[in-house]
């Protein structure tokens, strides 16, 4: 009701205008074709641009955590540093490895990047900025993101290098384990929201985000999702697949140039994807902060475009991920598997049961205070 108030800054105004003009002047086939191509181009561009911004932000924040300045020579405050890095990586030679499996070696980075792009397409960036909205959105995301690990395993094997191989095996074990926890954490919220579709899930969180709605259970699920998402992206304290001191660079040791760039890009984008899925599922996605009954406040909040809300919440989670990354030392492989199988998974199962009980007995916030939320 409140969100229908005119929002001049919303991009969906532009997209709906474009849609109506295309449909007015062309047949439906051509209009759809042009729209598909446009959406694809915009998504690919956003993919690259977000990765560049993330790389810059990561380097800056990392530097601040270590009492340094970070990149500050290329452009004002080093803003062009990641652009310069991108140009460098595009110009680098792609090295062919002796006695490697050519076909698999060149195919592996594509698995990684395609998996991350397919997941990227399912993110709701704002109201009306949603490329794929299946009724099984959550399941789709977990399914598609699991393809990336095949790229890692194939890369490790086809490089004909034992370090790559060990890195790939570690990454595989880690990914398969933590995928389970991430899935269970998302499932907990699916129980709460009663839907797997991202758009209805976001609409349902208008007045009460899922993280507050399910209180104890939601917060546990949120923390578990962040931990396992962090582990899935091979970052932070969970970066043993790329442990420099033992494995040089893990599964992408033998890659150079653009192929390495694919892995690099996919790693950063996976961080963004994990953060944005967490935003969508737990923190109300692109919904502004709305309080029941405070109409003036709600209108002011709704005046801020939805994509700003989305990127703001995502940025907070990305910062959290960086904070964790630079706080903790790297785990050993047995500690890593202990954490997953002895702590996260049992807690997760109990938590799922707890959430079912909360929902059935009506002990959620919306169930307890129906007028307020």
């Amino acid at each position: 009701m409140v969100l229908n108030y005119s929002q001049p800054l919303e991009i969906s105004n532009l997209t709906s205008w474009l849609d109506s003009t295309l449909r007015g002047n062309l047949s439906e086939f051509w209009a759809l074709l042009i729209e598909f191509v446009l959406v694809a181009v915009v998504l690919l561009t956003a993919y690259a641009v977000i990765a560049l911004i993330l790389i810059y932000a990561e380097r800056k924040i990392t530097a601040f955590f270590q009492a340094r300045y970070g990149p500050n020579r290329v452009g004002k405050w080093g803003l062009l540093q990641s652009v310069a890095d991108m140009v460098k990586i595009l110009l680098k030679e792609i090295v062919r490895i002796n006695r490697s499996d050519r076909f698999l070696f060149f195919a592996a980075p594509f698995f990684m990047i395609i998996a991350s792009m397919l997941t990227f397409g399912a993110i709701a960036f704002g109201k009306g900025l949603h490329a794929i909205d299946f009724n099984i959105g959550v399941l789709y995301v977990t399914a598609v993101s699991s393809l990336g690990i095949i790229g890692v395993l194939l890369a490790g094997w086809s490089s004909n290098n034992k370090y790559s191989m060990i890195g790939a095996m570690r990454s595989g074990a880690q990914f398969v384990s933590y995928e389970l926890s991430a899935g269970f954490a998302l499932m907990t919220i699916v129980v709460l929201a009663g839907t797997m579709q991202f758009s209805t899930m976001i609409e349902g969180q208008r007045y009460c985000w899922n993280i507050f709605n399910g209180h104890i259970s939601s917060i546990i699920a949120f923390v578990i999702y962040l931990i396992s998402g962090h582990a899935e992206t091979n970052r932070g304290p969970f970066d043993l697949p790329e442990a420099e001191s033992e494995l040089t660079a893990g599964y992408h040791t033998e890659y150079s140039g653009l192929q390495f760039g694919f892995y690099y890009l996919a790693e950063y984008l996976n961080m963004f994807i994990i953060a944005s899925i967490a935003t969508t599922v737990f923190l109300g996605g692109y919904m502004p902060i709305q309080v029941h009954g405070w109409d003036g406040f709600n209108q002011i909040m709704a005046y801020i475009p939805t994509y700003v809300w989305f990127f703001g919440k995502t940025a907070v989670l990305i910062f959290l991920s960086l904070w964790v990354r630079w706080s903790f030392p790297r785990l050993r492989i047995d500690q890593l598997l202990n954490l997953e199988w002895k702590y996260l998974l049992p807690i997760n199962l109990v938590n799922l049961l707890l959430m079912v009980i909360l929902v059935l007995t009506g002990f959620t916030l919306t169930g307890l205070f129906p007028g307020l939320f």
Partner: protein
Amino acid sequence: MAQQIIFFVLAAIIAIFSILAVTAKQIIRSATYLLFVLLATAGLYLLLGYNYLFAVQIAVYAGGVMVLFIFAILLTNRPGENVKTELPVRRVAAGLTALAGLAFCGHIIYWNIKRVGDLVAQSDITPQQLGHSMLGTDKYQYLLPFETISILLLACIVGAIMIARKR
């Protein structure tokens, strides 16, 4: 029109990579080609509008089974070596088995193809419907098979632990 084109592309991918998966000399390549087949099958489900089946196909087959396949292949002895061509007797036996399988599947498809029109009356099944029919006890609901399968899986897990324990 567009659906037809996509269908033919997917069908071609399935056919070509199925043959490649069988004829490939390296077992890891074979697994990769099989992965493409499974992905293209998922694409077919998506084309038909079965979103749930599409996601399950990718999560279970591409993301789960294939990862385990590749893992298992990587752990075997020399996965990169070319497989030797088998003895003629074995080849004949393998060919006969394949033909028998083809005949069996062909028979089922042939006798059911007329009934497909009746079966796909329902467009897309929502996850809610699916969950209710999985865990319901009424007619056309499948709680008993579901639980049987979970007991089977439990037995598998216990067996795996027994094998993995070195005592």
